[in-house]
């Protein structure tokens, strides 16, 4: 541990904004949070590769552009407005009313940075679900609304305020380590609202109800993205460790075990249904496992993290079939991975709470918090995207869907040598 602190001092000396007046513990914690913020930022390329790989080649640039730009735009919007609504002085347990455009001391700004990447994660979850048919500008406006309204308000209920003046869910004893409900459920169920408004991609469902597969253009890329997410998740959850780091070990171990169990859960479910061991489902299994332990990473023992992850892996195989039955088209299964697994993981905290297993009162509070997250995110998400559809037009035209959004939205294509002569007009030609 002593070596740890020496490294902490060395890094802190190079970190602008970390005041030397802080205690050693605070300095090390600040450095740790800054490091975790870097890990969470690394999840953005993870999402970009995963979502791009799961899309057709003609939309690969558009998907990455959405990830890239919503990381930037959502960060600015969250810093300006969202952070204050979420962590400002809490008004009646509902909403923060201070700390807009935060510019305080070094230690608190490290937390602003970390929270900003959380907000960007919530926004980018939607990107994959709506891929291949949403117009770019309305999508970006939607991202801003997510980080300035949907995410920070729910965040204020769960994490906002102080012990004496807490957000209303926090006051009831609702627990969420690193955003299983606040980030993943909010992102997943907002995505559900968006794709209900948006409708399926052209030809996704036949007239007889048959579901047409639209395989991604580069599954190795998707797997690489999932690996990046797996690594980044250690910082995503790890940043929730207490300043004394006593719970850091269990958080990061639970995170990793959840992912591993998710892979196993997905494979067992595929085998049970006598389906091939699809890599696309298995990598989503890892992500489902990670989401499932995000709420409880700090509060449950490793054995139960395995159970939570295992069930998460099963959900990502079963969830998409349920949505498909309802003719809902989720390109990367974001609703199942983030929404459904987040729901399960949030309730699992109540089931598997350390030293308080299966406490009905706790289960009820966790179920209430999860239910509120689902209803809030889906309801407001649906309204927001409906309003965007009415005002800006959400859906790309069928001509654009045919040609691919890379060309029609950005005038660039991902794989020029292979595609220009096959599926697109020459870039020098007419638009």
């Amino acid at each position, binding site marked *: 541990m002593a070596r740890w602190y020496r490294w902490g001092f060395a890094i802190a000396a190079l970190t602008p904004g970390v005041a030397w007046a802080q205690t050693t513990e605070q300095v090390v914690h600040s450095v740790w949070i800054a490091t975790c913020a870097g890990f969470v930022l690394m999840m953005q390329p993870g999402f970009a590769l995963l979502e791009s790989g799961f899309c*057709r080649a*003609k939309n690969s640039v558009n998907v990455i552009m959405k990830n890239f730009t919503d990381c930037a735009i959502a960060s600015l919007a969250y810093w300006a407005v969202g952070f204050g609504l979420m962590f400002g002085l809490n008004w009646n347990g509902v909403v923060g009313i201070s700390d807009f455009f935060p510019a305080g001391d070094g230690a608190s700004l490290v937390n602003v940075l970390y929270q900003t990447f959380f907000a960007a994660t919530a926004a980018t979850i939607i990107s994959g679900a709506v891929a291949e048919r949403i117009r770019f500008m309305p999508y970006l406006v939607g991202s801003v609304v997510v980080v300035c309204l949907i995410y920070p308000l729910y965040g204020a209920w769960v994490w906002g305020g102080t012990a004496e003046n807490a957000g209303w869910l926090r006051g009831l004893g609702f627990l969420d380590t690193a955003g299983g409900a606040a980030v993943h459920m909010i992102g997943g169920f907002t995505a559900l609202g968006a794709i209900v408004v948006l409708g399926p*991609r*052209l*030809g*996704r469902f*036949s*007239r*007889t109800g048959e579901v*047409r*597969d*639209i*395989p991604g253009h580069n599954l190795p890329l998707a797997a690489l993205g999932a690996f990046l997410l797996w690594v980044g998740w250690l910082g995503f959850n790890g940043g929730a460790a207490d300043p004394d780091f006593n719970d850091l070990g269990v958080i990061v171990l639970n995170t990793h075990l959840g992912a591993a169990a998710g892979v196993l859960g997905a494979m067992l479910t595929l085998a049970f249904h006598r389906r091939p061991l699809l890599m696309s489902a298995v990598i989503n299994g890892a992500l489902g496992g990670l989401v499932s332990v995000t709420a409880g990473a700090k509060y449950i023992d490793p054995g139960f993290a395995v159970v939570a992850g295992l069930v998460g892996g099963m959900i990502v195989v079963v969830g998409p079939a349920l949505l498909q039955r309802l003719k809902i088209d989720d390109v990367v299964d974001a609703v199942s991975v983030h929404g459904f697994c987040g729901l399960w993981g949030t309730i699992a905290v109540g089931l598997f709470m350390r030293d308080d297993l299966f406490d009905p009162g706790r289960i009820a509070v966790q179920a209430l918090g999860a239910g509120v997250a689902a209803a809030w995110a889906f309801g407001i998400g649906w309204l927001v995207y409906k309003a965007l559809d009415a005002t800006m037009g959400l859906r790309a035209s*069928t*001509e654009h869907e*045919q*040609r691919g959004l890379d060309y029609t939205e950005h005038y660039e294509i991902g794989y020029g040598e292979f595609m220009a*002569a*096959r*599926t*697109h*007009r*020459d870039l020098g*030609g*007419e638009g």
Partner: protein
Amino acid sequence: MVANDNGSMGLNYRRRVIYQALQNTFSDPQQLRVYFELWQREHSQETHFVVTRFAAAVAKVAGLDAEQKSLFQRRLFQGLTQPYESLPRVPDAWMPAANQTDEQPFVPAGREVQAAAPVAPEPVARIDSVERIVFKAFAQPIAAAILAKADRHPGVLQEAVDDLGTSASTGADSRTQALHRAFKQWSGERFASDALPPLHAPEDLQHLAHQLYLLAADLIGPMQADRLLAQAAADAERLPEAALFSPQMLL
């Protein structure tokens, strides 16, 4: 665009293209004339101006190797991109009797015919515009796949076309609606080439191509539709007419 006033590629224009390519390839006038007459005799009546077929025939007779054949073919394509006036005039003595004094000047598309000179009837039936030739070649495999699927489910084609009409009538201008009516009529004729509505403008043909894509995505599936479209464009690209109107313009 190289076409005459009624939208077809004139016979005299094609003669000049052939003559120029032969002249640049064979130095012996006797040999040159033999091959020119070969084209007159066996290829000038072809509905489509398929220069590759003529290039293959000449290569066989003249014993050209692959490189020489390729060069000859390239010269033919180059000729197709040149205006009529810049192509060399075919000697009168080489012209078929009926046409000997009647070589007509090339008139670019859209220009009025000003010349008062008597016009002899073309020896071939009027041929399609380049755009339509390319479109027909492009549309054929997509339409065939759609019909193969639709024939297994009676009534589904009509239903799908009607649904396209519903979306076309929502906020669409009169031009789009007219194009949809034309498409619907064409689908009623099972997308027969000779029943293609009298459309020539690239944007109109592009609209029809998009309607075909939508039908294919609906009836066959989006992946198949993407592949069909890409393959159809690649196949149509091999037509000599594609040098003048690329099927990529239909995507």
